[in-house]
């Protein structure tokens, strides 16, 4: 009998531990946030005690800590930031790689209506590539700023107009705001410029690259001396892709329209690659070959990069002397990147969300501070114009040149392309499909067919692909 009791106990213990272990993995994270949120519940008054912020890295947190005056302290692991009024910000960070961030965010937003107050998403971030997926009026997951009590026309008047357009839905209602603005420039090697053009003066080089036709003639000059103009066809894509006249997919339709500008990119890229203006060994960006093409042993003359690209991509990959690079105007104005802050529909902390958005995206002093401390080109027209003439913004990496002098006018002239929620896949897959064509692995029609297959796989609701002539 005793034996029986003992073995029964053991059996239940084992089964219980097994079951709880299995069950725990599913709900563990939700429980954890709920419990820690509980003890601060009384502090926030009518507002919830926890502000949940979804992001893909600590970029937003560092900027918030730097300029949001209500911040008291952040836990060592960076997951909880305490505010002075007792409310806690919980950072829910998921990496951007392989779409993990969007998957987790989508799950959370779909459960938003039924989630407990302290588990609701309050703020989430998005990138330009997929911002429209969340600002879409039909999805209605990002609150219109006016519902928060922010009047974009007065409160955000100093922002660059294209960033406001980007964060708006199809009816022109602004549903997000950004501190960051990412105008791109042409960044060139001064030693190569001296060798080929006899000067490294940004104005003179700017004249050589002012539009695509001039740049093509310049590319031939560079080629004659054994240099490549750009590393790969992916480098120029954003310039074309940003100037499309119609969205990839018009709202309510299921047809992908490939814009004439994209067709131009295909035509020009093939021509440039065959002519030897690109480095044939570099296939796309963000790979080892691309990084190496930024080193001193490379023959690549220039890159098309925004502010963050110069500081976080070019600078770490450059192994020569500082001051070897210069910036000048690109052949065509473009924007690359940018993180948008959205208030999630159904947030229980609208006041805090409003404060945070205003502090981070509408306060000129804060934005200038971010520019100084974190090298972001920030979203204030007047502030950036001041920076353009302020010698203290000069960069050693660029040989003492003040890049803001070139960034500011580009930012003011950017015409943002019309967005759709299919942009990310279209942009990614068209580059991929035509990569084979540029390298001569497949013919033109086969590359088109491959894009059609891939895009229909990614977006099952797409029924047709129209190619511009």
């Amino acid at each position, binding site marked *: 009998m005793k034996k029986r009791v003992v073995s029964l106990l053991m059996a239940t213990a084992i*089964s219980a531990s*097994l079951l709880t272990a*299995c069950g725990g993995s599913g709900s563990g994270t939700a429980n954890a946030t709920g419990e820690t949120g509980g003890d601060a519940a009384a502090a926030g008054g009518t507002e919830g005690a926890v502000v949940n912020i979804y992001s893909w890295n600590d970029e937003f947190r560092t900027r918030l800590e730097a300029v949001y005056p209500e911040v008291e302290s952040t836990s060592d692991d960076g997951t909880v930031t305490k505010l002075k009024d007792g409310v806690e910000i919980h950072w829910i960070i998921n990496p951007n790689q392989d779409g993990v961030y969007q998957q987790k965010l989508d799950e959370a937003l779909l459960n938003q209506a039924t989630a407990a107050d302290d588990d609701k998403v309050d703020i989430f971030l998005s990138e330009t590539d997929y911002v429209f997926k969340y600002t879409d009026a039909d999805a209605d997951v990002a609150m219109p700023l006016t519902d928060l009590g922010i009047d974009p026309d007065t409160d955000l008047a100093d922002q660059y107009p294209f960033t406001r357009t980007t964060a708006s839905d199809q009816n022109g209602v602004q549903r997000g705001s950004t501190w960051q603005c990412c105008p791109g420039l042409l960044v060139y090697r001064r030693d190569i410029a001296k060798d080929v053009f006899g000067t490294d003066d940004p104005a003179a080089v700017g004249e050589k690259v002012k539009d695509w036709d001039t740049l093509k003639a310049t590319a031939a000059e560079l080629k004659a001396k054994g240099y490549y103009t750009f590393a790969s066809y992916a480098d120029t894509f954003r310039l074309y892709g940003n100037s499309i006249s119609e969205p990839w997919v018009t709202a309510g339709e299921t047809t992908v329209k490939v814009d004439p500008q994209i067709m131009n990119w295909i035509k020009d890229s093939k021509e440039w690659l065959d002519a030897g203006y690109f480095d044939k060994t570099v296939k796309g960006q963000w790979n080892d070959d691309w990084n190496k093409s930024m080193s001193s042993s490379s023959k690549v003359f220039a890159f098309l990069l925004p502010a963050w690209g110069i500081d976080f991509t070019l600078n770490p990959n450059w192994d020569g002397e500082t001051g070897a690079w210069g910036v000048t105007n690109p052949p065509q104005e473009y924007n690359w990147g940018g993180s948008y802050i959205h208030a999630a529909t159904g947030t229980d902390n609208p006041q805090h969300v409003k404060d945070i958005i205003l502090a981070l995206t509408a306060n000129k002093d804060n934005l200038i501070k971010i520019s100084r401390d974190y090298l972001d080109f920030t979203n204030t027209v007047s502030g950036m114009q001041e920076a353009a003439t302020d010698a203290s913004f000069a960069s050693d990496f660029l040989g003492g040149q003040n890049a803001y002098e070139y960034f500011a006018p580009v930012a003011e002239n950017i015409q943002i392309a019309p967005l759709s929620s*299919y942009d990310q896949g279209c942009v990614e897959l068209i580059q*991929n499909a035509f990569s084979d064509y540029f390298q001569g692995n497949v013919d033109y029609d086969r590359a088109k067919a491959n894009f059609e*297959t891939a895009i229909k796989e*990614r977006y099952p609701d797409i029924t047709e692909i129209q190619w511009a002539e």
Partner: protein
Amino acid sequence: MNKKKQHHLSYAKWGYIFILPFFLAFFIFSLIPLVDTVRYSFYEYYRSGIKEIGPTFIGLENYAELLKSDMVAYAGNTLILWVIGFIPQIVIALLLANWFTDVRLKIRGKQFFKIIIYLPNLIMASAFAMLFFALFSTNGPINSILMSIGLTDTPIDFMGTTFGTRSLIGLMNFLMWFGNTTIMLMAAIMGISPDIFEAAELDGCGSFRRFFSITLPLIRPILAYTLITSIIGGLQMFDVPQILTNGQGNPDRTSMTLIMFLNSHLKSRNYGMAGALSVYLFIVSGILCFFVYRMTNGGDDSAAKPRKHAKGGKKA
């Protein structure tokens, strides 16, 4: 008598209670999702942006749609990639297993070599693929070496050609699995009675003859097992080509395997289509499993007979 019987029964009860957790876990975490996968394969169910579409019952449309797609071509890719990896794997493994078990050769450090050849299997496949991606990139170390010893003037674009990419995937699969196969075949060869080898040698049998007439026929069941498990593993080939080609099966989708195709449907949370593809894969794997069962149980009479005897004995 009665008491004893009850005692016996209660032990069986404890047995069931002890295996209950496994079956509960299996039921909740494996069987229900499995049934759901099959169920959703008859539905239109995916996500467009953040909006959920479906589930709407559409019958066999997903299955028909898949047959119209390039699924067959991807199945062909999978088969080719598997063959490229499997042929060198089985040849080298047989050779090594034969050498390592040959008492006459007296190879030193057998244990050491066994560990070494098994090591590549311990590396995560994705890490292995990333390593190869870096090694064989156009400006990578392999090209630097080839150029510095003068074998080529311009860097070779290994991953730009179908042949190059497929060979690399085959090479990686070979490196990862030949150790495993070698050890399995060694066990099989060591299971053969040494008397037979001795007898063969006394009769003047050479090593080639011995290998083809004694070793190979006697390890046939294990060979068949290796073959079939390898095919099933090959059907599920995913991580190596996925990482090496960035999920696109470049160039021209010639390295796209069936599971990569499945994965690209899951990017849009297309549960319906992915479910239908899974059912196809399930059927193929099921047929292969049937063969492996036949080969290991039915085909070998000597193994099947004693078991029948044992069963009969128990009854009596």
